[in-house]
């Protein structure tokens, strides 16, 4: 953000004349980050001066997209309140998914679950939106560090969504979560099986790095596991969108 977004002339003008930026180091101020339910970086929360949250942007956006989204939020477009208002008039599965996603990033896990489930229940349980909802539902126990429950959810997706991107994503998540559990041997097997199943995956380079690290073949990267989690989560979020 600092090197690309906040140095962009349009963003500089926007943050000089239209909104005020506050930067908080989430590592140094982890309490504030926890209170704000920050689960990925960067996260930009738009607030009113009384402290009320308008909405948030999780993950990286190009300068033009970021400015547009923030202006939309300022005009009440695409915010959680806006989407809830639309849903009050007429149920829409895509909007229901967006609402679930917003609650997920705000720490409203129960509400997120409910909205994702409504997407699945109101349509074909094997269509793309249901798949995205299932992936989102599986990520909730993972975020709560309930790894076994998350693995079971991803394994179920692999069965229900065979020969789709969801199957591939779920298998990778399983391998990654096994690694997070600390089972090195099983994680190596899971990653290697993934490579065997999906040799052309876009994630191959990262996976090979994971396997090498697990086998102790190279020193640990400086990037922490949390960072990878966040970027992993975000990249999947982008895929879903």
């Amino acid at each position, binding site marked *: 953000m600092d090197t690309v977004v906040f140095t962009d002339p349009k963003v500089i003008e926007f943050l*000089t004349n239209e909104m*005020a*930026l506050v930067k*908080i180091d*989430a590592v140094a101020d982890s309490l504030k980050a926890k209170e704000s339910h920050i689960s990925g970086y*960067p*996260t930009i929360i738009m607030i009113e*001066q009384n402290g009320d949250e*308008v909405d948030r942007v999780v993950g990286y956006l190009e300068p033009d997209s970021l400015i547009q989204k923030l202006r939309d939020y300022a005009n009440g477009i695409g915010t959680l309140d806006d989407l809830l208002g639309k849903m009050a008039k007429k149920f829409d599965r895509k909007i229901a998914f967006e609402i679930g996603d917003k609650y997920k990033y705000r720490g409203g896990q129960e509400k997120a679950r409910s909205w994702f489930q409504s997407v699945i229940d109101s349509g074909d349980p094997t269509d793309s939106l249901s798949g995205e909802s299932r992936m989102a539902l599986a990520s909730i126990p993972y975020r709560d560090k309930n790894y076994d429950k998350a693995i079971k959810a991803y394994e179920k997706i692999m069965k229900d969504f065979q020969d789709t991107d969801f199957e591939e994503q779920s298998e990778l998540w399983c391998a990654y979560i096994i690694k997070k559990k600390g089972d090195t041997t099983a994680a190596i097997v899971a990653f290697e099986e993934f490579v065997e199943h999906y040799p052309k995956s876009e994630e191959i380079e990262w996976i090979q790095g994971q396997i090498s690290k697990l086998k102790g073949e190279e020193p640990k990267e400086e990037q922490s596991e949390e960072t990878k989690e966040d970027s992993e989560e975000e990249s999947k979020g982008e895929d879903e969108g």
Partner: protein
Amino acid sequence: MNKLTLMLMSVMLLVSTALAVSDSVEVAVPSAPYYNSVDEAKIAITDDRYILVEFYADW
């Protein structure tokens, strides 16, 4: 070449090297203005504009 000429040439070489080094110094890139806390922002801004709180992590 006498000693004085050699000394002058050495000085000129040193000066040109120093100038070359200073030419390579990066120019500061303008960046968006920001505050370090919401309270600081509230005090500084006089209109009712929205505040954007960016949480970042420098690992």
